[in-house]
């Protein structure tokens, strides 16, 4: 049985002009331990698909199943990482990380111990008592990831987590995420608009069409060896995946300009 099943998920929004069907028909089967990237043009509803998987948003039609059970609301087995990190500015780093455990009624000593372990895991040792306002964007996102991992979810839902970071930080955060993921290979749904990022991280890339009524236009398996390193991207295979994804997202014409200059 697959870990996550999207069964003809439709998502619509009420606007002043009436109801808009953002996502038309999203169906996918995701196996346990798979790292899935969802890419698509902005406004295609890829973040909405993620919200539906977390139960934050109810599909207009269709269903999301986790381990065969329909998703009805946020649940224990899943944790979300947000694009803006969404930290609580009045709390210290460790207290932010412990938030999920606190809501589950875990005792203070135990949740702080777990939180400190995770702060260390994401490379923020020594910043446990800092406030979010004292951290850089990349550090804040590390806190967001640690907070999600603290509840030890089976599924990690990541909504453009590195979208607000500069290119360099973004790449090193990606490698960091892979390092952490290799520990226990949780199932990951990773929404991004970065093609390179998707290929570098994922086992499979789901490509969505532009909205409204967007759907999956291609399901590409990324057959690159793990553990992956930065060197992967200079290889020939990477370039092939890259141009294929560019073609799907931007069309043949634009794809040529996004490819690196040939020597």
């Amino acid at each position, binding site marked *: 049985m697959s870990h996550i099943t999207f069964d003809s998920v439709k998502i619509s929004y009420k606007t002043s002009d009436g109801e808009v069907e953002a996502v038309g028909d999203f169906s996918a089967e995701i196996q346990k331990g798979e790292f899935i990237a969802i890419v698509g043009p902005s406004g295609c509803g890829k973040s909405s698909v993620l919200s539906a998987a977390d139960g934050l948003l109810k599909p207009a039609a269709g269903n999301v199943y986790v381990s065969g059970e329909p998703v009805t609301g946020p649940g224990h087995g899943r944790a979300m990482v947000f694009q803006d990190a969404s930290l609580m500015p009045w709390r210290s780093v460790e207290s932010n990380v412990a938030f999920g455990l606190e809501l*589950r009624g875990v005792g203070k000593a135990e949740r702080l111990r777990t939180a400190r372990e995770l702060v260390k895991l994401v490379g923020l040792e020594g910043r446990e008592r800092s406030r979010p306002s004292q951290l850089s964007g990349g550090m804040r996102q590390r806190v967001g990831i640690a907070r999600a991992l603290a509840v030890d979810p089976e599924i990690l839902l990541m909504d453009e987590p590195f979208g607000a970071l500069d290119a360099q930080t973004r790449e090193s955060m990606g490698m960091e995420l892979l390092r952490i993921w290799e520990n226990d290979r949780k199932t990951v749904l990773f929404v991004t608009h970065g093609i390179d990022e998707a290929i570098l991280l994922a086992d499979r890339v789901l490509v969505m069409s532009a909205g409204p009524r967007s759907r999956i236009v291609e399901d590409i398996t990324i057959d690159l060896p793990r553990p992956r390193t930065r060197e992967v991207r200079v290889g020939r295979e990477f370039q092939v995946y890259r141009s294929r994804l560019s073609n799907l997202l931007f069309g043949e014409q634009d794809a040529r300009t996004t490819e690196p200059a040939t020597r």
Partner: protein
Amino acid sequence: MRTPKRKDAGAPLTTSRAGSQESAVKVLTGCISIVVVLVAWQVSASSGLVDASYTSSPLEIVKAAAELVTSGELAQNLPTTLFEFSIGYALAVVIGVPLGMLMGWRLRVRQVFEPLLYALYVTPSLALFPIFVLVWGIGTTSKIAIVFVDVLATVVINAMAGVQETDARTLRMAHAFGAGQMAQFWKIIAPSAMPTTVAGLRLGVGRGVITVIVAELYGGVVGLGVMISAYGSSFNVPPLIVLALLAGLFGLIVGSLLRRIERSVFRWE
């Protein structure tokens, strides 16, 4: 390991000693203008340049202050005013903070109370004071009531605004991590509304002090306002100025105390 306390954003890397020196200099320069005015005032009064029976003079004011204290007149009147203010203010805070937060959080509660509170906020409630006197008499009760009404509106409106300013993304995060309505309120909404709420408490002090004094001016048996009114009608200027300064000083002290709390507790702002 403790991390150092955060300095004001954009402040250069100064040691804390240099920082306190800087603030001492700031206080001293602030005093210059006050000293200059006092000296000019004294000189023009004692040289006959202005009529001291209207303007009084700093020395006369100091004398009047000493007399108010030694005669026991101040000790007789000040406690009443403080009592009226404190009870009215405390009631307004105890009722206003929860009510305001509830109004910010729950649309239905807001719809019920908002028109009433805004009406209260923009009405100069002192204009209604005669009615309060009709109901509760000329004593302390009517003054407590008017302070309560006046401060309540300020406290409620700020607490409500604080709640409404809660970042929707933070709430969404809490919801995603499984926080129910109650947990969302206590762990997200209430803490993030605190700075604005306390700012409301500070504004309320100013309003409350003005209200209690003016209400006493209107009529009463004891209190600072009653004294001001008595000295005013007998054209006795020096004690009048002492009392006005005293009221100002009180507002300043309570206000800066709250500001200090704001700064130390809400350092994340």
